[in-house]
């Protein structure tokens, strides 16, 4: 609160001129009170009330799982959801484009062969499939992830998910030009394990 004393003023004639003008002299050097200070205080009180009110309102609102109200009263991501976001962003940055190649001579499923032919003979080292992965794989079991037995996972390119998808397409489209693909009785458009171009 401002002092009443500071507001005390007296009027005395000015010595600088003969005219009857008056000069305002303060009794002390304290800042002059002004009319906007109470208004400012009222605004601050109003803002404070608003903040408390919003905090109460947010705490009463039903938030979906994954959202929480932080100590400031703002809506925020739960720590679990924040961690999920970070993990998913990391996955996008850390992808791998790979080839699955036969670990031994034998028959393997063929999805790119003419419709009557369900399997294909591959020699050890022949490509069965090109693919991209970026997520944590829940199992190490090759059949669970690879789609056939006796396959070897050879990472060909590490990069972002987008970069790996581009690389995968280049490999799939150029598959018919590999010596192993040209030597067969039938020419297939894609590697045996690739049903589609992606």
């Amino acid at each position, binding site marked *: 609160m401002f002092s009443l004393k500071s507001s005390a003023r007296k009027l005395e004639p000015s010595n600088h001129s003969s005219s009857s003008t008056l000069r305002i002299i303060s009794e002390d050097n304290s800042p002059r009170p002004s009319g906007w200070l109470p208004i400012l205080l009222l605004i601050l009180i109003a803002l404070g009330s608003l903040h408390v009110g919003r905090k109460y309102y947010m705490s009463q609102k039903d938030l979906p799982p994954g959202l929480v109200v932080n100590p400031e009263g703002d809506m925020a991501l739960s720590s679990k959801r924040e961690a999920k976001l970070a993990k998913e962003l990391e996955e996008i940055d850390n992808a791998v484009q790979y080839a699955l190649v036969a670990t*031994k001579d034998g028959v393997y499923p063929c999805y790119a062969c003419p419709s009557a032919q369900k399997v294909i003979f591959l020699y050890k080292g022949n490509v069965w499939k090109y693919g991209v992965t970026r997520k944590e794989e829940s199992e*190490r079991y090759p059949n669970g992830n690879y789609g056939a037995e006796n396959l*070897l996972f050879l990472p060909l390119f590490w990069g972002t998910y987008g970069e790996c998808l581009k690389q995968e397409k280049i490999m799939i489209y150029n598959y018919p030009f590999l010596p192993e693909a040209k030597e067969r009785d039938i020419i297939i458009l894609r590697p045996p394990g690739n049903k589609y171009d992606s």
Partner: protein
Amino acid sequence: MIAKEEHLLTLEAQAKDQQIFISGRIWHELYPKVDPGLFLKVLGQKIDLKKYGDGIVKFYFTFVVIEKLTRNFSGWVGSDYFPKRASVDIGIRVPYEEIVAADEATVIRLMEKALLEGIDTIAAHERKFVAPFDYKAFKADVEAIFAEENWYKTEDTPA
């Protein structure tokens, strides 16, 4: 049915009886320097899992030879037992730098070590076994194979 199709179906039927599955996740520049196929062929011929019990009917092993394994691919390494399939699935990392610097014999030694280390992890799953399985005898037989000189050089192995 033509002869070629018959041959393919015979091979497919043989594949269904397979007990040992040895694979890898190997940086492409290190293949075939690191060749799980050598282990697959010899152990597939010389090991019969039925001899040790019915607790494990399929043995999956993966050599992981990758310079850096980011967090999302850390699951490539580890050991799991699946009671429903009575199978064990093991992924063991082989030191990348050592493989790069190694000659053929050293690469084989590093791979042998990794595989034996993988068999050791089976002990942790013993409580979950659906039937007994003598993994110690299994390991001893694998060690005996590895002890033979040039065990991995089969008739059709390129010199």
